[in-house]
């Protein structure tokens, strides 16, 4: 998906409950003709259905939906489509705590509702090209995130790449715009955007890595089928399903079916 010179227009989906903003955003995005609006949803259930059905290039989600948190939607999209669908948060305040949670869930950017319409279009296009925006408060959070990650997984022992990244974050935290940092670091603006995307990826918290069969089993169990029937439906023995379930529980950090289903729902694995 990295900046394919495709004739197909970028597809965008919006999940937003504020009617005026929804209308303004839809209008702004379709105005140029470069973007194709797949669907506009106003609540979580519609959004969930959309995510299961379609794979938009960019999914714009309001976190504070009346029917639940948009985080669930972001997780679900990540789970369903992986990197093919880029999620971003629609925000008024740009509150870095909320954004950080969304980033952990898999969001790759955000879009200020108070920005001007051309900025929206540009942000969406950059998101689709594998770049991400970053403002000062979130940069501060990322710095912290980077420090803790360094303890956990020393990515680059030489630390050169990390040093550049830390410098980038410090510039942005000090109020520099990405374009200015590009100039300072002798890089292109797109490179900066991609470096920021890499940071988003690093701050993403990996959800439980369930196999397809394990997920299938959990979905059946969620519907209330007993193990015996699950085994019949999946065409395996009952003991196999129990082994799979035990492995799934372990991955979800759960000790029984109820908590496992809860965790799976939290992680957006189940509807």
């Amino acid at each position, binding site marked *: 998906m990295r900046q394919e010179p495709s004739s197909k227009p970028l597809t965008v989906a919006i999940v937003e409950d504020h009617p005026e903003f929804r209308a303004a955003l839809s209008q702004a995005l379709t105005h140029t003709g470069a973007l194709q609006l797949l669907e506009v949803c106003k609540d979580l259930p519609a959004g969930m259905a959309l995510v299961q059905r379609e794979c938009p290039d960019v999914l714009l989600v309001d976190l504070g939906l009346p029917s639940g948190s948009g985080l669930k939607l972001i997780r679900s999209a990540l789970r369903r489509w992986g990197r093919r669908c880029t999620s971003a948060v629609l925000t*008024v305040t740009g509150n870095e705590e909320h954004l950080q949670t969304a980033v952990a869930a898999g969001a790759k950017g955000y879009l200020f509702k108070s920005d001007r319409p051309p900025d929206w279009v540009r942000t969406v296009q950059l998101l689709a090209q594998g770049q991400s925006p970053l403002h*000062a*408060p979130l940069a501060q959070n990322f710095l912290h995130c980077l420090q803790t990650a360094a303890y956990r997984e020393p990515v680059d022992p030489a630390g050169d790449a990390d040093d550049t990244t830390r*410098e980038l974050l410090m510039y942005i*935290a*000090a*109020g520099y715009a990405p374009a200015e940092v590009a100039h300072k670091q002798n890089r292109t603006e797109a490179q900066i955007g991609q470096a920021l995307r890499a940071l988003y990826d690093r701050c993403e918290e990996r959800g439980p890595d369930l196999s397809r069969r394990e997920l299938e089993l959990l979905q059946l169990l969620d519907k209330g089928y007993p193990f015996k029937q699950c085994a019949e439906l999946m065409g395996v023995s009952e003991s196999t399903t129990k082994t799979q379930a035990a492995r799934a529980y372990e991955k979800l950090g759960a000790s029984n079916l109820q908590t496992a289903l809860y965790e799976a729902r939290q992680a957006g694995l189940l509807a």
Partner: protein
Amino acid sequence: MWWAVGLVGLPLALFSWWVILQAPSRLDELTRVQGVEVWYESVGPVVFDQPGVTALVKRPPDWQRMQWAPTPLPSFIELGTSVDLPPDAPKMRAWFRIPIPPDLPGAVPHGRQGLLGLRVQGGPWSVWVDGQLIQANLSDWRIQWNVPLRVAIPRGAQEVFLAVPYAQPLGYAVGSLFVGPIDTVDTAWQERGFWYQTLPLLTAGVAMLLMLVSFHLAWVRPQEHLFALLGANALVWSISCLQYAYDVTGQDTLTVWFASAVDSSITWGVVLTCIFVFELLGVRVPRLRAFMLVYAVVSTCLTLPVWGWKVHALMAQQYFNAAAYVVGLAVVGWHVVRRPQPEGIAMWLAMSIQLALGLHTLENLSNQTNPDSFYSFPIGTVVLYLAFMYAMSRRTVAALEMAEHHEGVLRARLAEQEQRLAAQHAQLQQLEVQRSLAHQHDTIMQDLHDRLGSNLTSALLQARTGALDPQETVLLLQDLTDELRHIGKSQADDRRGLNEVLAELRQRVQHRLAHGGIQLVWDVDPALPPLSGKQTAQHLRALLSEAIANAIKHAQATQIRLQAHLKGMEVVVAVTDNGQGFDCDAVDTGRGLPGMQLRAQAMGASLSMQSARGRGTCIELRLPAIP
């Protein structure tokens, strides 16, 4: 309770079975000797020490002078309650002529015959046949008073002579005699030996083990007097039982002391048993206990052989013991009646049985009136010890149960405490959350007032006067929306970095600058130190906003440069524009310069301004840095 009855009853039942059924049926297989005759021989001035007695036993009588008189068996001279034994007391020998039934002509021969005597008390007996000594129990006669007599009769002998030496006042006792096949005699002899010798020795062994264990427990837990008392009881009984095992024949001095120790051990046994039971049942009779101890000490001392009083007061001592035991038993009985407990009843029963059996032994054997009687005192002791064991095990079980109960109570109390603590903790947490919420609320209200309130008010006032064109309205609303980003920051102002404050400032002014077509050159060291002072962030924000606003409004600049660098111990923040500048001396106060000065002072910073017409303006602030 059934345990108690069983422990007391089982040994008694076994013993009764032997006494009532087994022993008589065994004796029925033999023939009771009839037509015994007796002759008392005066043996002259013989000293009853070991050499004297040995010589006497082996000395044949004057067979011609024997004058026989018929006598029934048992034959005895009773031992008085208190017997004086002067050195010159007359010494005698009691001779019994025992006819042996001959083989009847034509009948099946008897085979080898044996003679069984149920008991011979007094001196060492000797058996003579045809003028020859054939057997004597000289070697250990002092501990053999309880051993039945067993003699193999030479074939063809028609009569057997049995001699028992004695000192005149002390007397003797010879029990019934039986004749029969030697193997039957042997069996009967061994069976009696088991009950009279082996069993007391076994109990002595058990008593010694018990003594070791009890003394160890007493050593480990000296506060529990029961263990020491039980150990002392076992020790006394062990000493008492030595009479069945230890032969002191040949050592006359030791013999005398040994006899004294064995006699006194009964006294101590009685006293210690009573005290042990008092302690066990919690009977509070300190004076009686003290009196009993004094009695035991006095009795022991009075009967010591050192006095050389030559008073043989065995019976008197044992009657006193019985009296002391009756008193103890009565006290225990009274206690049990008032507070019936299984161990109390068991102890009382066992004590009663021991007393009864002890009196039985005293009245039949010790006073030499019934040498045929069975020897029952050891069984009483066995019963008593079983009762002791029963009571101690009940005690132990009760202690364990008590400990478990206490543990349960403690655990319940602990759980309760934990629950209470958890509740308190939850309450505290709730309070903390409430407090933090209240604080957050205050911060947000303050921010709303400071940031949105003033802007809204000015917008409202301008809108009323009609001074707002649409573009200005958009800018104002844009400002207001942007302000939302900074409301309710979780971090307090005084803990934020200078970079953060500057970044926020940039975000805040960027729309205005873009609208005015002014380029902002950002030249900020990204590693500036944090701010000091509570109000510094607020002052700095206001001061720089003012400076930038002035540049936008008055300077007609196309570029504004914001620089912030660390220089030595100061942070230098400069706002420079390329506008028209002004004459510093002629400037009016409308540009808020005095306010900026005040804010700089409040921050502990210095503010300087340089401007000249046509050459822009530079406002420089020097802030002390936190190292």
